[in-house]
């Protein structure tokens, strides 16, 4: 949630041409894409490390 509030200040908003709903959704687009990509990257790195640990265990056996 904190990243959402920070992004709300970063994403441009002009009340003359934008609606509050549009601004909120625009912020969500940038936050969701960033967070989901980061989450998947974490999973990929975790899977890589886990595959290495299994190898070590196998070799020590």
């Amino acid at each position: 949630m904190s990243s959402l509030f920070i992004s709300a200040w970063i994403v441009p908003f002009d009340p003359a041409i934008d609606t509050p709903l549009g601004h909120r959704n625009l912020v969500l687009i940038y936050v969701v894409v960033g967070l989901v990509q980061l989450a998947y990257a974490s999973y990929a790195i975790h899977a890589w490390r886990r595959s290495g640990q299994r190898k070590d265990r196998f070799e020590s056996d």
Partner: protein
Amino acid sequence: MTRRGIIIRWIWFAGSVGLIAYGLFHALWASPPDAQQGNMIRAFYYHFPNWIGAGIFLPLNLAASVAYLYLRKKKPRTAFKADSLALATAEMGVLYCTLGMITGSLWGREAWGIWWTWDARLTTTLMLTLIYVAYLILRRTMGGSSRATLCAVLAIFGFVDIPIVYMSTTWWRTQHPAPVFGGGEGSGVAHAILVPTLWNVVAWVVWGGFIVSIRYAAELRVQQRSYDEALAPNPMSSTEQAQHV
């Protein structure tokens, strides 16, 4: 992953993060608002690259699946590489499809007044995502030597939906607009929109390739170890034989 591979991936990571930061700068600050959509046009810069990502990684999944089917008996170790690439690209393709639908829905709520509609473009896109989700579930739940073969066949059938998704706005009347690029007469965007679009497309495709390379390396390591274990002589059976003697 060799030491050289790790160094290459660190460079790749730094490059992709730099590109994403530069793309974000263009998307949020260096480009003007649109005359009709205002600042909501900035949704396009994070919506469109997802579909380009899916349009790159899902065809790669098809190529890897076909390569696996061709090589599985001739060169098993090379076939493992193809199968590992198929998994990595399918996951990335599903990720980009999901993000494309989420960002499209958030944009559509503002632009059309609705979160979702069952028009041909959105429905075929949802089907495409579900086909590849089924592919990933099949890979997770099924074991044995036939798993990779069945998944490769499913990937080939699943790919048939991609041209249908692309052509859906041409073949049927849809809420979703026609292709912005390569959509025939009247398609295309202004230079001020094109620049952030291209930077973000490049950035997210480079990032996607980086993540695919990690998933590929991890999956290949698991598959090769399973193969080596299967080929290795069973120590238990040799002990039992010795006891019998």
